[in-house]
């Protein structure tokens, strides 16, 4: 008896030490290399690069623009993302599946397509601006700060939506009933209970959209370069590809500045989350909680669907039409449309290989993220583990650093991660999987943490008290409760990893290609129709996967119902701690 406790104690210690070491090696070390690079000078170390860059007008301008764009577009996506989540999660709207699909579209369509389509619509000599100026209004110019903010906001709404909706659904109806029974109105209940409980999810959705915005390259590259609006991500790219002994150091310095912004953002989030009350419940509850009167319902529903249609279907249409153009830029008349581009793509063996490679890589990265992210969430929430918290913070930084710098840091780190150790990962496809995990892990951690927060620890304690082992607790309690929300956030990892461009454009091994790199090649060769066709194929793939997931979900729910029917007589586990409402 004594022996087994001894072994368990040291076993745990060793496991934890190993976990810390792995966290350090995979997530912290590349970031430290970056930091080191930023203070490397011709002879020794120092802060001269910082002094020089901070003294430049352009750097200050880039930092200011980055802050403005990040904050404004995050506010935009939080507002719309949370509103949509609220309506879809609670209100008695019809066509909710359709609405959800429309809301998620910008996440599936590559952001360069969204940007292209909006600039097409608001082109200087285009119909919309012609109509606006004939009506005496100022024409919309997307090549401006406002334009950048708008497109960023559109692209990050889905992130906020996904996280907030999952949270709202997990707020137990009992709480609302208790509040109403205590004499509060429906509106007061929503404000004081549901919105307050959902605040951490809104905050973590917001921070993810902030991080995604400040490191995004393709949108400001498209809209900001031509109008002379530098942001940090484009400025960093300029530095990284420049020559001269200090080019890497300069890029590193700017990345450190960007990381500071990111850290500032996460601290702000921590502030909100700490203030939020705890929440205990299990599983999502998709029941309708707000019964809108018929006319209001129809009004809300059609305003939302109408808005989503105009704002999110337009880029999709644009993409398919561009993909079908015989000659790019010659309009969309029937005689300039063809499916030949799709035929060419599907006949191209390289393209098919790229699709397979990307799916494989994204799948592998996703699997690792699920395991590591959920383990980290468990350690953070249940054990208050320091290493897990450090992991979360460094993963957030890795998500916020522009792809090109992260890619370079990956090369510097992974060729020789420890002195004398050369694992030979760099130069194979494995490096890309590692890079994807490094980049997207934070999305999974956030998702898993939110999922973990809603599982009542008492359930596990009860199981342990009842004599269940650790494995049994995971298999019987945690996995079934966590599976759905964890898989939902894994979707947030899988999609961007599948279409990832910047990391692939540097880290891909010779002889292999990813989807993103294929699109990039087509664009660079001037084959815009083929690039659009490739993106369209990806969107179809994703929609197919989404549809399959929905079908699976339905199937499982039906199985569960059958099972529940059989165990109807079984005792209910109390889901809410009696004191939950009071806290």
């Amino acid at each position: 008896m004594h022996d087994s406790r001894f072994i368990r104690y040291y076993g745990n210690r060793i496991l934890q030490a190993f976990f810390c070491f792995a966290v350090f090696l995979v997530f912290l070390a590349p970031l430290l290399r970056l930091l080191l690079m930023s203070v490397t000078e011709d002879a020794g170390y120092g802060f001269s690069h910082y002094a020089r860059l901070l003294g430049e007008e352009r750097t200050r301008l880039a930092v200011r623009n980055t802050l403005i764009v990040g904050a404004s577009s995050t506010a935009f996506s939080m507002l719309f993302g949370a509103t949509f989540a609220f309506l879809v999660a609670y209100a008695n709207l019809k066509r909710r599946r359709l609405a959800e699909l429309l809301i998620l579209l910008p996440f599936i369509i590559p952001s360069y397509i969204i940007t292209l389509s909006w600039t097409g619509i608001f082109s200087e000599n285009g119909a919309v601006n012609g109509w606006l100026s004939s009506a005496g209004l100022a024409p919309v110019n997307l090549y401006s700060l406002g334009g950048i903010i708008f497109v960023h906001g559109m692209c990050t709404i889905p992130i906020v939506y996904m996280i907030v909706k999952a949270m709202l659904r997990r707020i137990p109806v009992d709480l609302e009933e208790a509040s109403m029974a205590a004499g509060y109105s429906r509106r007061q209940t929503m404000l004081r209970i549901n919105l307050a409980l959902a605040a951490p999810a809104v905050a973590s959705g917001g921070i993810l959209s902030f991080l995604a915005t400040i490191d995004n390259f393709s949108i400001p590259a498209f809209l900001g370069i031509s109008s002379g609006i530098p942001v940090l991500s484009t400025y960093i790219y300029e530095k990284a590809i420049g020559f001269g002994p200090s080019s890497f150091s300069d890029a590193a310095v700017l990345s450190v500045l960007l990381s500071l912004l990111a850290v500032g953002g996460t601290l702000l989030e921590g502030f909100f989350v700490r203030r939020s009350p705890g929440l205990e419940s299990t599983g999502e509850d998709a029941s309708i909680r707000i019964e809108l009167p018929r006319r209001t319902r129809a009004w809300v529903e059609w305003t939302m669907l109408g808005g989503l249609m105009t704002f999110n279907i337009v880029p999709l249409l644009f993409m398919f039409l561009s993909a079908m153009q015989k000659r790019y830029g010659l309009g969309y008349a029937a005689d300039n449309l063809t499916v030949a581009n799709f035929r060419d793509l599907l006949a191209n063996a390289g393209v098919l290989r790229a699709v397979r490679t990307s799916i494989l890589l994204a799948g592998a990265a996703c699997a690792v993220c699920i395991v590591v992210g959920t383990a980290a969430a468990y350690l953070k929430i249940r054990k208050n583990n320091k290493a897990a918290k450090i992991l979360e913070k460094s993963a957030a930084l890795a998500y916020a650093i522009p792809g090109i710098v992260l890619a370079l840091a990956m090369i510097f780190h992974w060729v020789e991660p420890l002195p004398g150790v050369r694992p030979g990962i760099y130069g194979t496809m494995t490096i890309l999987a590692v890079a994807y995990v490094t980049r997207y892990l934070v999305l999974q951690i956030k998702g898993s943490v939110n999922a973990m927060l809603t599982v009542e620890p008492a359930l596990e304690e009860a199981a342990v008290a009842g004599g269940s082992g650790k494995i049994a607790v995971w298999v019987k309690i945690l996995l079934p409760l966590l599976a759905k929300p964890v898989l939902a956030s894994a979707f947030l990892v899988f999609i961007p990893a599948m279409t990832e461009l910047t990391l692939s454009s540097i880290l891909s091994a010779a002889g292999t290609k990813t989807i993103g790199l294929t699109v990039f090649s087509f664009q660079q060769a001037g084959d815009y129709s083929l690039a659009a066709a490739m993106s369209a194929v990806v969107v179809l793939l994703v929609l197919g996967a989404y549809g399959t997931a929905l079908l699976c979900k339905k199937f499982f729910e039906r199985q569960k119902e059958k099972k529940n029917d059989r165990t109807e007589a079984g005792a209910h586990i109390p889901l809410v701690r009696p004191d939950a409402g009071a806290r």
Partner: protein
Amino acid sequence: MNLRRIAVCALVTMFLISAFTAGAAEADPLKGRITLYTSQPDRDVTQLIAAFNEKHPGIGVDVFRSGTEEVVSKIRAEHRVRSVLADVLLVADSVSFENLKEEGMLLAYESPEVKGIPEEYLDKDRTYAGTKLITTGIIYNTTKVAEPPEAFADLAKEAFKNNLIMPSPLYSGAAAYNLGVMTRTEGLGWEFFEKLKENNTRVERGNGAILTAVAAGERSCGIIVDFMAVRARESGSPVEFVYPAEGSPAITEPIGILQTTRVPGLAKAFVDFVLSEEGQKLAAEMGYTPVKDGVEAPKGLKSVGEIKSMVYDIEVLKAAREAEKARFSAMFQ
């Protein structure tokens, strides 16, 4: 005893040597794999390697293809951690090569195939050589422009106000090269770019965006590389390409071998092939101007002998590049 042993050893060695040389003499002596880092479009690389493999079936070529800037960043990062995986490099412009040369990353190789290639498109130390000519000129939309421009200087005219577009030297090595050459050309200089700014010229990330905007009529006129404009015209887009009167700044898509290669013999065979008449004809088939005199350019493009080149000392350009980029970005901010 000892003598016997020596005799046996000698016999075995002799046998091995003869077996080895006999086997090698039979087939193409070059066997193995090389790694090529390039910024050429996929289609072109595939064609090039297929043709190369017809001549050297024993040499496999692994390709990493990305943008010039990405490829060069990657290779410089690899150099820093002493793990360069590329054997041969083929990217857009010679300034990138000059920089790598300065860092001691390139192998000098006097290919027998450089004859016929004008000296101005070769490195004097032979660490790299131009493989084709990609000149920069003017593209205009035939439905929008009544009076076509004939020279770069024409773009400063009032008629093109709000209607110009050009690639950014901050994001494209080729455009940075052009900036260096054009600001040093008589009649253009920095004043020319100031006038472009006054004409409210839009600056884009790459040549593809220029073609899109001009073909769609969003902007009537732009600065662009020759083959893209000519290809679009040949496939029916309403555009036309002009070789400017001042001369054509040209990048040469040079090829070079990395100092660190473990298979110099194979790498040299690849370089020889690209520079040979066969390789140059292939470049013309792909739609580019061959850099070798005597190999004819494809339809719509001028051959190397007909092009009025606009060149400047590459080392001066290289030294000034970062400062020029900064000046440009301050001007167009």
